[in-house]
């Protein structure tokens, strides 16, 4: 049984993600963050990947009988994830020179292949998103050779075409061996910087790959990862998640300030395989970050921007969005509701082409001191992710593959863009869906059914109907209608 009928807001987030997935190549409208060169959460890779994760959560837990609603959107987002604009930063970042490791920059060469070494902050998302797609939809789409190819060529610079061909299996194998070579401590993001959080998506990807192909890579990696981090401790002296470790000095950087995003991001993902630990520390950790507001609203203040080397760090912290995502995974309904209430009251919820988002706002607070600042990653993605997730939602994707026979069960195999699906599940062999024709976007207004046993009868709004073909059903204009397909 899924989690009931989607709310207007949940449907709005799904529509917004679908709209973003359909933007023309290199149209990143509404997605640009504060920083330059795809640094930190301003990077498109994070928005694209967590839209995929959010869609996966919504499909797995809320609309399990609507693969046709989700699969095309996820494929479009992965297609964008492979675009050079998303990963070309690695050509520069691979040379090192961050404030953490300026001493290494002399020994590092420019690297074009964005997954061949380090950069797990990108490669693991490509890997895990492809695996999510194939696991959720029971396909080997991304097992096709070259299906995950990174390609760049410019008429104006850069010489010959750069082309790096991978697929779901070869990329997983490659990342696994990078993990082995690291002693299971983890693969670096920027050179020399192994972030605890950034290896969590890879672990999720290993698990999904195991579910698809058999094997036990995730168990191997988790066992090794636990041992490797035992020397350093997952938590810092203040009880927050250690942020990163320098490969050369083995120095651990704590969550110094502390920053909400460090704990929230890590906790939201590490819960997949480390439930008791994450839940055991959650209440105490999150209490350090929450600020109660009027009428049950809850906010998350961000620490002032740091000054380093005489420079102010410009970045999208996404503190608010990450704490919302974390609370959703922890099943902390009170905190999540308070955060969403704050967002709806102070962060300008906006509807565009049927989609809901919270537009970027760089102003820290309003006249009353209420947080108004929100980044594209939070406003486009994380608040929707939090709203669509369920308690332990990502963990359940990790732990519980679909039941046997799921991919052959009655389902909405295709959904036109202009059809809104607020319910899609099979109960006792009967397909139940709630459908609405949405005229704010173009489309043919049909759904395509599959997996129906011979002799299945269809009802729409309580009236038995005969579809125009055995599998294609026209969705009428007007209010949402319930569809029932029963043998």
């Amino acid at each position, binding site marked *: 049984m899924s989690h009931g009928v989607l709310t207007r807001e949940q449907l709005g987030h799904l529509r917004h993600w679908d709209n973003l997935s359909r933007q023309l190549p290199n149209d990143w409208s509404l997605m640009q963050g504060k920083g330059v060169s795809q640094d930190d959460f301003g990077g498109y890779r994070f928005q694209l990947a967590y839209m995929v994760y959010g869609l996966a959560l919504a499909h797995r837990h809320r609309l399990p009988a609507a693969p046709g609603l989700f699969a095309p959107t996820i494929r479009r987002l992965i297609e964008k994830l492979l675009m050079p604009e998303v990963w070309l930063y690695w050509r520069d970042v691979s040379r090192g020179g961050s404030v953490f490791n300026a001493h290494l920059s002399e020994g590092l060469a420019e690297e074009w292949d964005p997954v061949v070494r380090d950069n797990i902050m990108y490669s693991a998302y490509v890997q895990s998103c492809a695996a999510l797609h194939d696991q959720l939809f029971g396909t080997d789409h991304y097992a096709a050779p070259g299906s995950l190819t990174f390609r760049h060529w410019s008429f104006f610079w850069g010489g010959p075409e750069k082309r790096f061909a991978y697929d779901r299996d070869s990329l997983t*194998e*490659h990342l696994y061996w990078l993990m082995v070579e690291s*002693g299971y401590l983890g693969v670096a993001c920027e050179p020399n910087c192994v972030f605890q959080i950034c290896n969590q998506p890879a672990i999720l990807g290993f698990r999904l790959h195991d579910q698809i192909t058999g094997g036990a890579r995730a168990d191997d990696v988790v066992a090794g990862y636990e041992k490797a981090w035992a020397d350093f401790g997952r938590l810092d002296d203040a009880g927050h998640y250690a942020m990163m470790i320098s490969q050369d000095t083995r120095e651990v950087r704590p969550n110094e300030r502390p920053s909400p995003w460090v704990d929230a991001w890590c906790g939201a993902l590490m819960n997949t395989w480390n439930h008791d630990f994450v839940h055991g520390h959650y209440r105490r950790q999150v209490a350090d970050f929450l600020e109660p507001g009027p009428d049950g609203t809850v906010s998350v203040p961000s620490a002032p921007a740091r000054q380093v080397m005489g420079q102010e760090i410009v970045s999208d912290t996404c503190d608010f969005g990450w704490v919302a995502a974390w609370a959703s995974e922890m099943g902390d309904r009170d905190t999540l509701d308070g955060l969403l209430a704050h967002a709806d009251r102070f962060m300008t919820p906006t509807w565009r082409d049927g989609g809901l988002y919270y537009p970027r706002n760089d102003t820290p607070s309003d006249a009353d001191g209420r947080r108004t600042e929100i980044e594209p990653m939070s406003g486009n993605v994380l608040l929707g992710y939090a709203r669509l997730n369920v308690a332990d939602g990502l963990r359940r994707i990790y732990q519980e593959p679909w039941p046997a026979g799921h991919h052959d069960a009655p389902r909405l195999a295709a959904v036109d863009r202009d059809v809104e699906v607020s319910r899609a599940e099979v109960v006792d062999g009967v397909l139940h869906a709630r459908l609405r024709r949405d005229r704010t976007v173009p489309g043919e207004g049909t759904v395509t059914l599959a997996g129906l046993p011979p002799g299945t009868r269809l009802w729409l709004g309580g009236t038995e109907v005969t579809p125009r073909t055995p599998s294609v059903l026209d969705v009428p204009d007007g209010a949402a209608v319930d569809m029932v397909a029963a043998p």
Partner: protein
Amino acid sequence: MTAPPIRATYSLVDHHNTPVTERTYRGRWQLVQFGFTSCRVVCPRALAKLDDVLDRLGDAAAAVVPLYVTVDPERDIPERLEAHLEATHPRFTGLTGTAEQTGDAAASFRVFTRRRDTPAGYDVQHTAMTYLLDPAAAPARYWSDTRDAESIAADLTALLAAART
């Protein structure tokens, strides 16, 4: 399970001080484990498991050369390796060399190693993967530390049987 993406090359000496490379053992299957004789937990457990694997193979074990490659060449000179293995795991041949040679061997198998100071001196952190090279000395299989003797023996038995047909 596919062959590991490793070079699997080495130029070392065995515990009789005889120079060896991966080609030395061509014609037999090489079962390769990295470790060091001062290791207190991981290596004794891994070698005991591989002894169990070899027992389970029965006569077919004759086609397998069990090798134990040190990640601690400073202490694991040939004489020490020989004494240690003959006393504890006599079917294994120990391989060692200079720090550069053992480092190259570890890198070619993509084995992580790191020397770590301890109150008693130092130890060497390392990954405990088990590798199999085929009779042509090409990488054939690997098993992570979490795999038990029964499953490794089953894989090996199937491989050896397939090679005989």
